[in-house]
């Protein structure tokens, strides 16, 4: 059993039933969840949101067009709205809830997003951050064009692209200087 608080302080009880032959193990943000009987074709998005109560990953289009549902699968950005949960297999899923340190400290991207006041409505931003996270993991010091092409699969209806681009650059710089400092 896992307790997932929601905005009103209610706790959603996530039942971990391991009974039916269709049960699946899903690794999310470092924890392994045993899913109850579930249609293996269910998109990962709805398992995260409805079953695990991880609602930071958003639904925007359901057809891989907007990026609101972006999560990392073994570090690579993936549209969870069209990704069947059964296909996750042994891969590690990272969602927006898994970026901060266990003590709650924001990572460089999250911090840049807060400090540069990127969000308007904020709805697209967890997907944007996950796409940026995937980029920085493979390309820690991207050029503007590389940022643009990595972020091209994410829509921001409010039009915050300029600040998103700036935040990605700020975070990249921060990561690099942290690395240097650590040597």
């Amino acid at each position, binding site marked *: 059993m896992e307790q997932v608080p929601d905005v*009103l302080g209610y706790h959603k009880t996530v039942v971990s039933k391991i009974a039916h032959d269709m049960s699946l193990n899903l690794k999310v943000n470092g924890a392994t969840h045993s899913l109850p009987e579930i249609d293996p074709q269910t998109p990962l998005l709805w398992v995260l949101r409805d079953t695990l109560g*991880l609602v930071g990953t958003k639904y925007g289009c359901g057809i891989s067009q907007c990026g609101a549902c972006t999560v990392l699968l073994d570090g690579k950005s993936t549209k969870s709205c069209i990704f069947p949960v059964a296909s996750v297999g042994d891969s590690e899923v990272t969602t927006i809830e898994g970026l*901060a340190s266990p003590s709650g400290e924001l990572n460089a991207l999250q911090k840049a997003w807060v400090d540069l006041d*990127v*969000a308007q409505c*904020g709805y697209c*931003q967890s997907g944007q951050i996950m796409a940026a996270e995937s980029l920085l993991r493979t390309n820690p010091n991207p050029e503007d064009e590389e940022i643009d092409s990595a972020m091209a699969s994410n829509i921001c*209806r409010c*039009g915050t692209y300029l600040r998103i681009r700036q935040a990605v650059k700020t975070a990249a710089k921060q990561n690099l200087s942290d690395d240097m400092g650590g040597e």
Partner: protein
Amino acid sequence: MTSLSYAGISELAEAVNGQRLHNSALDEFRVVKLDRRQFLKLTGVVGGGLMLASVAPRAHAQDSATFQPNGYLKIDSDGIQIFAKNPEIGQGVKTSLPMIVAEELDASWSDVQVLQAPIDTGTYGYQFAGGSMSIPTNYATLRNAGATARSLLIRAAANKWNVDKATLATQNSHVVDSASGRKLSYVELAGDAASLPMPSDGEVALKDPKQFRLLGTRLTGVDNEAIVKGEPLFGIDQSLPGLKYAVYQKCPAIGGTVSSANLADVKKMPGIVDAFVLEGNGNASELLPGVAIVANSTWEAMQAKKALRVEWDESDASKDNWEQASNEADRLRLENGQQQVVNQGDVDAALESSAGSASGFYKYHFVSHAPLEPQNCTASFKDGALVLWAPTQTPPQAIGSAARIVGVAPNKVTLNQMRCGGGFGRRLYNDFVCEAAAIAKHVGVPIKLQWTREDDIAYDLFRAGGFHQMDGSVDADGKITGWRDRFITFTADGNRPVTGGSLDASVFPNGLVPNMRVEQTSLKWTNRCAAWRAPGSNVFAFVVQSFLHELADAANRDHLEVLLEVLGEPRRLGRMHTGRASGVVKLAAEKAGWGRELPKGHGLGVAFYFSHQGYVAQVAEVGVGDPEGARQNRSGESVQQRKLYVHKITTATDVGPIVNLSGAENQVQGSVIDGLSTMMDLSVTFENGRVQETNFDRYRMLRMPSTPQVAVHFIDTGEFPPTGLGEPAFPPVAPAVCNAIFAASGHRVRTMPISEEGFYLA
């Protein structure tokens, strides 16, 4: 139900003075601007009242140490809490409204915790997000709320120290006695302040704006951290014990009713709890007929919806057809219009005896709001009481509508205001709330209704398309002498044009040119149309500011010079102040380097618009590629394809003093990008009443690689009060870009989206 009645909130977004919302749908909820005395009567509770505690879902139990002089703030041992009155839809009011309270309270922003205010019109007046009205209609009230609390805290300290309160000052959430060096925090003073009577009229002093420490600075959004951590904030994030998940299928042609449906098959599908037909309530902005499916998960509900087969009775359903409407407009533009909304001087004589002239047929398609969070609402109906968790822009109206739907009194409905994943006017209408309420009542368990993206676009209330035959003239001196606009718009009831689709005497350049006539003719239309970011202005600006350029060109004159000449001497013209208008035009031109030598193939275009009390001018710098060969557009015409580079858009805005500089800049940049996105390629077309583009694969918004630089400049002369910024920066984008295209290429764009004329963004 044989006919479709539609009670929208037509004038909401345009009722800019906040005195009163002229619409029957809002009769119960007037926005009343209170003077301070009335305000205190309404919200002031001697001794720190219980009002908020009684309605706030999570308000702490009231105790004597809780200081709560009005609904906007509360100080107790938990610290300082400020309540954000209106829905947050991305326009930033959850941060900017509390900033105003904190400023006059003289609280340190870092000491302040901001909470969404409960929906309680008795305490707050009408609570809504629309028409860029949150700032102008609440500014004075919020300053008073903060200043009232501050004056009581000072009095509490004066009593405690037994000194004259005039010798005390406040600083960073403390009352300080500079003579003795003593100080007490607001939290320490809360209990004493709570027991004081409300201050008299003369006792509450507002700050001199020169002393502002918070207003005008750059503060980051209060929900930023929760957003980047993915915490539950939005309507779609709600969860309740025992929650079930619902979807609702309506007739793809608005107005159709359910003849039959394969409910038995659907109910057999995995995870399905129930499936049933709901009759509409006859109000198309509340509950349309359809089939509800309730399931154990969103996905199972969506799968069942795909398997649902409904036979619709479409005898009264929409037959709307965009192509037919276009053809009809093409014919009507040659005739006199049904109605004259402006008739100044003798426009026919002016057009006949001109030294130069211009004519053009302008056209713009329907578009959808498409906020990124598809409509949803969580509802629980139990023991005759309805509880809603709704991402709405008009919560009091949602309460009224939902109460009617489930047949209870409005005071049996509690609405928890959720952060909205975008609004743009879509959530002024509460059809999704009504559906959720009806479904929750039917099934008797809490449900979350989730619209798919396809639902969200297909059942939107659209920004109407429209057509303008423009004719104008200039004299031998190059001055504009005649301006005629034959506007062909749409009507739902055969009488009044749809919201956002009517012109009136405030249209530019009425009052600025000697002879002008605006004619209006309406085509019948069934699909719902409504307020869409900067209603009316969002399309009219494109037409009139482009056509002004056409006339400047006919006179062989510089567009900027003509625009400034038309605006003329600083004076009031209706709601507009022409001096403020010229001010932003000059600043944008200066910052963009109007008149400078440009690289080959580049062009500069300028446009100005006044909307929602805001003055915005923009200069676009673009480059246009060579024709690349012809392709068919949506309308089946063969058009040359050309690449468009939008290098930079320079903006100048006058909305009076800025509340939050970070938020204001974000709104301008976002509006420009939204404006560019919408003008480039957004269109919904209709065939047999059905929307043809229902997801982002065919409704293609601008993405990061096409985002131009946007320079933001503000003017504040100190003479005018602050006004809102959710909308005014949108309208000038399309004409500025199209005027720049003309300057760069000689091609006059007269259709939005401009992809219809072959342009696509590099």
